[in-house]
């Protein structure tokens, strides 16, 4: 018997992380893909920042505001995508049936894909932050501990959306796969990544403030421009994250049970 803590086995979660680590470490194309897109984004926005810094006092005052925005946004997107891709790997390889007849519980399965989402993001984003330092002389780490708060908050939101997307694909099959790639972009205009929430029309602002990323990116600008850590914004983001994580987990479990009712766990795949 494996050791369980509150009905959850760390050993089984580790087994699933091992499974995905084998896949990732054995495929240089997968690792390259994790780094490729964040690098392209960072370089493009880095040059854009250099260009704008000579034109506008806003960017000149806080050189890294756009670069930080793009790197933090990318970490959010990568977490959500990493969770969904880790789940899709099981669908593509028709392995769900094997997994769910084992002692693995749905909560442990969910925990493992969340962890993999984080690991994939760190593999992709850390090298990019170092490249930004090297290419453009900007270190995102200059935000200090606040950066940890921003990253953690975005990770929690990426997890919430990612795990809900996994449930959706489990219930509706690979036909819903495009949700994994596109869902986060629906939120991009509302997340205040490159501009403050106040730029949005009045009726959109309450919607933006109902999303944790808006708090994070407003907080980021406060650190970079006013050099003030807004704990109220961080607290708001974490409070909302708690709600979204509960909704995401409940959606995953509800769709998992729906998939069990409809016999979708056996034989789903390419």
């Amino acid at each position, binding site marked *: 018997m494996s050791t369980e803590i509150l009905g959850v086995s760390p050993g089984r979660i580790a087994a699933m992380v091992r*499974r995905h680590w084998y896949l990732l470490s*054995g495929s240089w194309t997968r690792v390259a893909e994790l780094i490729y897109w964040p690098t392209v984004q960072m370089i493009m926005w880095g040059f854009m920042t250099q260009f704008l810094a000579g034109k506008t006092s806003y960017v000149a005052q806080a050189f890294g505001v756009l670069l930080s925005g793009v790197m933090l946004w990318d970490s959010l997107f990568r977490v959500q995508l990493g969770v969904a891709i880790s789940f899709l790997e099981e669908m593509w*390889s028709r*392995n769900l049936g*094997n997994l769910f*007849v*084992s002692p693995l519980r749905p909560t442990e399965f969910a925990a493992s894909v969340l962890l993999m989402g984080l690991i994939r993001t760190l593999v992709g984003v850390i090298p990019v932050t170092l490249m930004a330092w090297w290419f453009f002389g900007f270190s995102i780490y200059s935000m200090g501990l606040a950066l940890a708060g921003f990253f953690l908050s975005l990770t929690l939101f990426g997890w919430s959306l990612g795990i809900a997307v996994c449930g959706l694909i489990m219930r509706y099959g690979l036909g819903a796969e495009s949700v994994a790639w596109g869902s986060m972009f629906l939120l991009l205009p509302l997340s205040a990544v490159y501009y403050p929430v106040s730029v949005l029309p009045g009726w959109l602002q309450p919607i933006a403030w109902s999303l944790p990323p808006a708090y994070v990116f407003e907080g980021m600008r406060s650190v970079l421009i006013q050099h003030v850590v807004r704990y109220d914004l961080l607290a708001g983001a974490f409070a909302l994250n708690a709600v979204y994580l509960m909704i995401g987990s409940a959606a995953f479990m509800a769709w998992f049970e729906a998939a*069990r009712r409809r*016999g979708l766990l056996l034989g789903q795949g390419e």
Partner: protein
Amino acid sequence: MSLEPHPAAAIAVTGLAKHYDAVAAVAGIDFTVPAGSVTALLGGNGAGKTTTLAMLLGLLKPSAGSIRVLGTDMLRDRHRVLARMNFSSPYVDLPHRLTVRQNLRVFAQLYAVPEMEKRIEQLARELDFAALLERPAGQLSAGQKTRVALAKALINTPELLLLDEPTASLDPDTADWVRGLLERYRQERNATILLASHNMSEVERLCQQVLMMKQGRIVDRGTPAELIARYGRRNLEEVFLDIARNQGKAAQAAEQQQPVEEKTA
């Protein structure tokens, strides 16, 4: 082959049904599988065999009925018993990019197998795939895949093994070898095996009990010898065809709208 009396049932199913809207994939079946025996679910395509196996494994939620596996209520506490059973099916696969050894390590850890490397080496020897351990699962032939899938199903030395078409797509020699392996495993471990199969000679050789399924119902049951005698046929394949085509004794029973097992009881 006769069915020995067993003190305990490894599987006890009562009133098990699965409906998809108005369609009954399984229409209220009852059966028990004695511990230490091999039982076959036989039936044509769409008879409800795979659906029944999926419900026994907890992959599919029944619409009605109860399932007890190794003394545990599967509808309430399936996670208490899943570590003591395992499963193999052509409908599932192992991740193609992982090597055979990596795949087996993952499942060994999921089942908390002690001394996993030793167990993997032992299975590789017994199932004759030691040379394939470092090969990606996606590069295996159909026969090799079946061996590895069986190794995955045996990784936790299960007390109950559920197999969906265990020798499908295997050449006769390999299929015969797999049957021998299953027979040995059952004898050595006193394991219980429930298999769904289309291969009648396999069922005749391996099974102490046969459950004949048609349109979601168990229409007959008994030892292979009992069924052959009951239908007045030479082998199980002819019994299967009688039931599938509704001819011979199966037709007589159908005319009276009564399963053969009830009529002959």
